[in-house]
């Protein structure tokens, strides 16, 4: 799926308290591209992700996903768009504590398919947690929780994967393992990935690296030879 942002503005507040989170952003991300978005806090990284995920509205400009203008969608259509097209991965995992790992994945699988439980088991296997499905989040390590979150995002096979600081809460080794996993499954499934991070080193695994500063794209470069996540150091 191709993501196309044209002259996108996002402003919080009004008048002299207005903060421009995004300013006149233009971006085209073709299907299957793995893009890392870098920038300091407050640069607009997460805002950009939220707009593509249709959980927030633009102030100006347009975002099209495969030719569909997200701003033109009503509430129900946005829900359907997210359900069918977007997988989210958050910094704080956001797993539901009363559901087991398998059930957290199954919950999302149930939204789009009938064989949710089988599919959940498959995806957990894929992220290396085949034997941990019956554990509750509190019984899992941070890395395992994030892998469950990835499984949850992947289970409905969304064409777009939006990752907000997915390694922010993890130690170096676990972070590297998560990035490897993300890179592998997105390549296998041909997903368009937008991954937001503070960590410039992570850019080395991407097909493309964007830098945001004060809501503007200040650098947009292609990475001709992305390295394997296992070789990353920071």
């Amino acid at each position, binding site marked *: 799926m191709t993501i196309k942002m044209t002259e996108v503005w996002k402003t919080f507040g009004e008048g002299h308290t207005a903060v421009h989170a995004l300013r006149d952003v233009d971006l085209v991300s073709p299907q299957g591209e793995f893009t890392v978005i870098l920038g300091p806090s407050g640069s607009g990284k997460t805002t950009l992700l939220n707009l593509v995920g249709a959980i927030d509205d633009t102030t100006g400009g347009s975002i099209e996903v495969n030719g569909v203008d997200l701003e033109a969608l009503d509430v129900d259509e946005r829900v*359907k768009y997210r*359900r069918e097209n977007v997988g989210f991965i958050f910094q*704080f995992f956001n797993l539901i504590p009363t*559901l087991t790992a398998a059930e957290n994945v199954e919950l999302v699988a149930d*939204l789009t398919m009938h064989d949710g439980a089988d599919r959940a088991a498959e995806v957990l296997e894929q992220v290396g947690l085949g034997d941990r499905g019956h554990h*509750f989040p509190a*019984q899992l390590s941070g890395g395992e929780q994030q892998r469950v979150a990835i499984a949850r995002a992947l289970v409905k096979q969304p064409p777009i994967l939006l990752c907000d600081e997915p390694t922010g809460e993890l130690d170096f080794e676990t972070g590297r393992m998560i990035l490897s996993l993300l890179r592998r499954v997105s390549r296998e499934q041909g997903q368009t990935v937008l991954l937001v991070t503070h960590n410039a080193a992570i850019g080395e695994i991407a097909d493309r690296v964007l830098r945001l500063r004060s809501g503007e794209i200040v650098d947009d470069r292609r990475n001709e030879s992305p390295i394997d996540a296992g070789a990353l150091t920071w």
Partner: protein
Amino acid sequence: MVKPLHRKLFRDIGRHKAQFIAVTITMFLGVTIFGATYDSFQNLQASYGSTATEYHFANLTVSGGDVDTLVAEAAGTDAVESVEVRTVADIPFRVGDVKLLGRIVGVPATGQPEVNQLKVIEGNYLDPETPDGVLVEQHMADHFDLAIGDSFEVLAGTDWMQVTVQGVASSPEYIWPARDRQDILTSPDNFGVIFPSAELAATLTTDPDNEAVFYYVDGEPDEETTALLSGRARDLGATNVYTRAEQPSNAGLSEDLKGFEEMAVFFPIMFLLAASMAAYVMISRMVHSQRPHIGVLVANGFTRGQVLRHYLGYGLVPGLVGSIPGAIAGILLARVITRLYTQMLSVPVTLVQFYPTTLFGAIAFGLVASLLAALAPALVASRVQPAEAMRGETPSGGGRQSIFERLIPPLRRIPVSWRMALRGVGRNPRRTAYTIVGVVLSLMLVLVSWGMIDTIDHLMTRQFVEIQREDATVYFTQPVSRADVVALEDIAGVAKAEPALTLPVSLSSTTDHYETALLVLADGTEMHRFASTNGDWIELPDRGLVVGKAIESLLDVEIGDDLEVKAPGGITLREPIAAFVDEPLGTMAYVSRDRAETLAGTELPATSALVAYTDDADAAQLRNALTDRPEIAAFEDAKALYSVMQDYMVLFYVFVGVMLAFGAAMAFALIFNAMSVNIAERNREVATLLAVGTDRRRISRYITAENLLVVLMGIPLGLVAGYYASQAAMKSYTSDLMAFDLYVRPTTFLWAAVAMVAVALVSQWPGLRAVRRLSIPKIVKERSA
């Protein structure tokens, strides 16, 4: 200048104003009900007490026997301040077309009696110059619309005599117009009281000067004097001896007062408990979400005492805001209730006083309840470890299968979204428990009031339809034969007529006495059915007495024991108890006519008859047909009271409606607060679900399912607790005057449960609205939602 911590307190309250308002309103209602009921109780008690003193309400009343000797002996007793001998008799009255069995109470024509004085409300006291003048008791005057100068008739022997209304009066003896202890509920069409001069009264009965009333020094109760005079009265052949507390009207009012006293405890406790729990849930959540702030406060040098006091403030504020206006509103409401009540009953003296203890007590109750609610979370706040708290990580609860899944394994295979709802119930067991308790309390509140109405409705039907089969009692101008009674069946519409005789009697066992009425009924009577204590219908036996079940404990007797029966005219006989019967109203004694005649050694006259109508009879026409007959002096509609009560049921349902509204308010406060906290605690989960494409309606359904599950868990407990609370409430009203055996219609349980589900659905509406307003981007990014 307001300190920053106080500013934080008020701003936090502002941010959670809906929850604080819910707690404050519940607190307000609890304190208001306490103030209103407790002050009404105190005001009414004071009004009755003052009436008793001001109008020299008798401490002891003795009927029958050698009254003159008793009075002469009592005159030498220092404890008796005044005594009065008077004529009291139940005789027929004819007021317009209505013939009823009324009561005459003779009073001196020249001035107020020494005991049981009257308050003349309209007209004047009796005048010796107007020998046919009478004072009419206010309830009767109101019912028959009798004004000064109006006339009606009383039966003097066998002739009707006209009397003139000289005035309308109220009496401490008839504030509640009860004929006697066995007939505490009367219809104004069947009973009324007039006060003729002693001279006139003596001419209206064959048994003049038959009652003595004693007023002790300052009207104070004196058990020793009572025991002395009662014992002597019985020795002298008295058939009825009762103290002020046992006096029918006063006993009825005492039952009523007891109701106020119980309401003043039961209802406020429920509300304050509910308010406390709602406050606890809210403040606990606040402390939980503010752990990082508390950590910062402690790290910066705030003492644990300061933190404790700060969080106690979250209880103190709704406590003060709810209880001070609540106490004032309650006290003002009590004034209105007292005035309405005393006006309605024509209580001669109305005392509305300010009781500082109620004001301060009500405020104290509210404050204590709210501070106790805040104490546990405030203590938690004061013990927060700053280093841990400032990391911003609140301890995460471990997940596990719900109790439902563990008990019912197939539930493990239901869709995962519904499993989530099941597990949500056990997520915060304490909060779930409090919500359940809220449901239980609300159902108790509703069932106690609704159960009372069902019980009254049921006992009226049982007494006036199932037990008393007659449609009317007619009293003859003079004793008639059985044949004369049977002749009534010739009247079109009369299906059956049986002779009846009611005698005031004193029943004695070896341990105690009990004054009641002995009803002599035809053998194999079809007019009265006897319900044994095990629920079976039994026949009136050929031999022995059938007595109300209260006799068993009152006289410490059992079936087969002999009772001494003392009847008017110095007749004393012994007869064994054949059976105890379970009757809602009164504690009567019954004997068959044949047995009574055998014991008396003579044929008994019939002074009255019980009459049953045919199914197609026109009751009004028959009443006219019967009362038009010259031999019939009075008519008592057996269903009149039943009809009056049926009419009053509408009012009772209004009462239930009010209680439902109160119960709903209470349930709303608790469920709303628990819901709000549930949703606040789950913001991140809800936002995540929304982000992955779950629509809000589906999330609302999960939340609704979870909340309804908690409410459904509370409903059976609430119905059971409500049933037992109703039973306890009814039991507290049960005496020899009335047996309130609880009866709750199955539909009552059903409607109460439905009402609770409806309240739960409404309570969660604000929370669901909050879900709709949730900002997904903001919440999913927060470290600790």
